[in-house]
């Protein structure tokens, strides 16, 4: 049946009704959300890993500060960051020794890989020291990872991953150097400055406290240190004009017990070494784990460069307590003594490197290989200098008197750029030296590199880098090399030295088997005779080593484990390897 067109329709082509236009506009602006059937709810990514056990045996329950203080008595474990509180990185295990090390072969490998976007993707690096407690290995990675592994098979028991924002203001690399284990918990610091306590059996968080301000440019990279009933952590961010600090949290509750700033406020001791308001941006972060003497009840913790790094004119004075070792009481953080390695630093020579505690001829001593190229031995009861000697071939920034410690500066950054040795990451990067009570010698990974240092005034803006110039290590591979170097602390002299093609930036391990282990930036994991320096064994791990090997045993079998994964602040120590292959594997070696 034919219909007569309505008047409304007839009008439409010439003048559309404003009502219709309005309705159409509303429709264009809001599209209804589809009412499809709900098929799924999200699941944790680990739920899709059928091989993961999901729980670890409750071995960490009985780990206490007292037990860590006696860690040398249980060499099957690696209970704390340096193996023992004294920082010696020495194990009494001797199943693997100079006679049989040539038969060492991989027992298992753990591979983490990287999925999706991460902060600082070009510079993530596997810098951790694994912790081993009665057959369970706890290890942390970049970007918020913690794994509990079966130390005999490498099988993943549980995994935790903190969500790390892409915009964390990390200065140099997306890295984490390890965890601490005590009282059934695993403690670790996230890149965005949370101290997280995980249940060591399940990997679930027990408490979580923020201890740095990312808005101010702070971050966190070090492994916490458990001392008595507190867990100690230090801040990172010395390149952002922060005010560095060390904090102590209660193990059980996560309540903050104390915080000590490494740069004093006006009126506090040391404030006279700063001018005007420069202390507010004075730097002095504390990004490497300290050592501890339970008998003296003193913690020894290094502090980083003053801010801005290269422009000392805006902060005249010695700039205490930057580039120092602080000896403090773990109960309240009160300072007993300090020693400043590089007063008024303008070369970014962070004084954070480890302080190794050892006794010699009845004296309680402390050994420290500083970035400034000098090897210091101090009396650790008083902080008095015993001796300072050079341990790098080329040190041109200045001289330090061997007995008085007096510093004479020779070269400083200039607006045009000055060539100065060592390069800004120093003659020794953070990777740790080791001590062998058998030989009485120290073994250091040495960086032989010079750099160009430029001075340029920086305007401070909170959260933005505050360098006061720029420094870069030489790119020419011929101009850089490394050593594993044995030094006698009784004389301050070298005993032997093994030259490597590129700067050494992997930690050293010594064992009662007469061995010294260390990894190279090109991926070789080496074993040396501790007495002669002879290279006895080598294995290519496939990516540069910038982490810390450890040794432990399970059911009477000794293992040596090392993380392999190149990265970090390569501009400072090996720009010629910026393009080298990256990785994220952990190898465990054993005898057949």
């Amino acid at each position, binding site marked *: 049946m034919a219909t007569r067109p309505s008047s409304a329709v007839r009008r439409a082509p010439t003048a559309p009704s*404003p*009502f219709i*236009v*309005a*309705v159409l*506009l*509303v429709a*264009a*602006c809001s599209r209804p*959300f*589809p*009412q*499809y*059937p*709900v*098929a*799924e*709810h*999200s*699941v*944790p*990514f680990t*739920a*899709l890993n059928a091989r993961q056990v999901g729980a670890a045996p409750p071995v960490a329950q009985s780990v206490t500060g007292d037990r860590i203080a006696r860690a040398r008595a249980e060499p099957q474990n690696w209970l704390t960051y340096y193996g023992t509180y004294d920082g010696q990185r020495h194990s009494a295990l001797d199943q693997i020794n100079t006679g049989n090390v040539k038969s060492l072969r991989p027992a298992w490998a753990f591979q983490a890989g990287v*999925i*999706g*976007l991460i902060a600082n993707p070009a510079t993530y690096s596997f810098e951790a020291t694994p912790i081993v407690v009665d057959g369970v290995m706890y290890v942390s990675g970049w970007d918020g990872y913690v794994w509990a592994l079966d130390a005999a098979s490498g099988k993943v028991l549980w*995994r*935790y*991953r*903190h*969500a790390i*924002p*892409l*915009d*964390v203001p990390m200065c140099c690399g997306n890295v984490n150097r390890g965890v601490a284990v005590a009282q059934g918990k695993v403690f670790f610091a996230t890149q*965005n400055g*949370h101290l997280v306590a995980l249940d060591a059996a399940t990997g679930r*968080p027990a408490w*979580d*406290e*923020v*201890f*740095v*301000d*990312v*808005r*101010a440019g*702070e971050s966190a990279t070090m492994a916490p240190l458990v001392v008595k009933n507190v867990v100690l952590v230090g801040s990172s961010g010395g390149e952002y*004009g922060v*005010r560095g600090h060390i904090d102590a949290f209660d193990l059980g509750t996560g309540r903050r017990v104390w915080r000590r*700033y490494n740069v004093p*406020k006006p009126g506090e001791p040391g404030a006279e070494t700063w001018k005007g*308001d420069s202390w*507010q*941006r004075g730097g002095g972060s504390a990004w490497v784990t300290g050592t501890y003497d339970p008998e003296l009840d003193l913690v020894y913790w290094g502090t980083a460069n003053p801010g801005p790094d290269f422009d000392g004119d805006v902060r005249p004075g010695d700039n205490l307590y930057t580039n120092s070792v602080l000896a403090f009481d773990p109960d309240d953080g009160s300072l007993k003594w300090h020693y400043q390695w590089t007063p008024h630093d303008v070369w970014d020579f962070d004084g954070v490197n480890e302080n190794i505690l050892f006794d010699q001829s009845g004296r309680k001593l402390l050994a420290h290989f500083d970035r400034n190229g000098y090897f210091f031995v101090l009396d650790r009861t008083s902080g008095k200098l015993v001796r300072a000697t050079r341990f790098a071939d080329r040190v041109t920034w200045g001289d330090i008197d061997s007995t008085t410690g007096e510093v004479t500066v020779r070269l400083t950054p200039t607006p045009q750029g000055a060539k100065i040795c060592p390069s800004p990451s120093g003659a020794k990067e953070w990777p740790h030296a080791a001590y062998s009570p058998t030989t009485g010698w120290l073994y250091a990974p040495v960086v032989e590199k010079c750099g160009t240092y430029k001075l340029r005034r920086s305007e*401070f803006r*909170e*959260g*933005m880098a505050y360098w006061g110039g720029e420094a870069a290590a030489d790119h020419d591979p011929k101009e850089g090399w490394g050593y594993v170097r044995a030094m006698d602390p009784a004389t301050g002299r070298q005993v032997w030295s093994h030259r490597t093609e590129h700067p050494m930036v992997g930690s050293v391990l010594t064992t009662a088997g007469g061995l010294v282990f260390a990894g190279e930036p090109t991926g070789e994991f080496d074993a040396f005779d501790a007495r002669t320096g002879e290279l006895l064994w080598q294995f290519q791990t496939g990516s540069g080593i910038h982490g810390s090997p450890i040794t432990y045993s399970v059911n009477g079998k000794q293992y040596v484990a090392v993380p392999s994964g190149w990265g970090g602040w390569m501009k400072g120590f090996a720009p010629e390897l910026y393009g080298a292959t990256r990785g994220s594997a952990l190898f465990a070696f054993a005898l057949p």
Partner: protein
Amino acid sequence: MRRPRRLAALLALAAAMAGCDYVRLLRPKVLKQLNPRVVRMVDFLPEVDNPNEAIVARLFAHGGLSNARRGRDGVFRDRIRVPKDQYIWEPAIIVMERSGDLELEFANEDQSFHMAFLPANGEREVLELPQHTRGTARVRLDHPGLYWFGCPVANHAGRGMLGLILVKGETPPAARLDRPRQPRPRGRD
């Protein structure tokens, strides 16, 4: 007699447009951002964002931004759709006014299977999104900053299925540095 009708119609039109995002673009605050390079980018967008014309991908965050709403239970909530044949999340940026729990409802209107790979404390959350289904995910993000999410299927992320969760907020007072207020970048002091 036609005059009041026309007035009513104009009022209805104005009311409708006030509720429309396009009209909001005319605010001075938005126009101020339109430097010549931004204008060039906006002009270029239609060319880029037609798959298989200029390039095969979509620009990151093309799906726009949405402020997650905070419910009475303190949980932030928002909805994200995957439109047909586009390889994008819509919206692609979710803003949380502060850290906490976020519940997201997804709808896949596309002809492909997708997944959402989401940041969360403890472990990332994974959600499968078969064609023409909905799914939900709940994540905890306890710190200010930018977090990415994406579709881990094939190279959907590279073609445009990357998104951001932007958590606003300050560091807790106890964790801040003890020093006078410092200048912040770009006049934010």
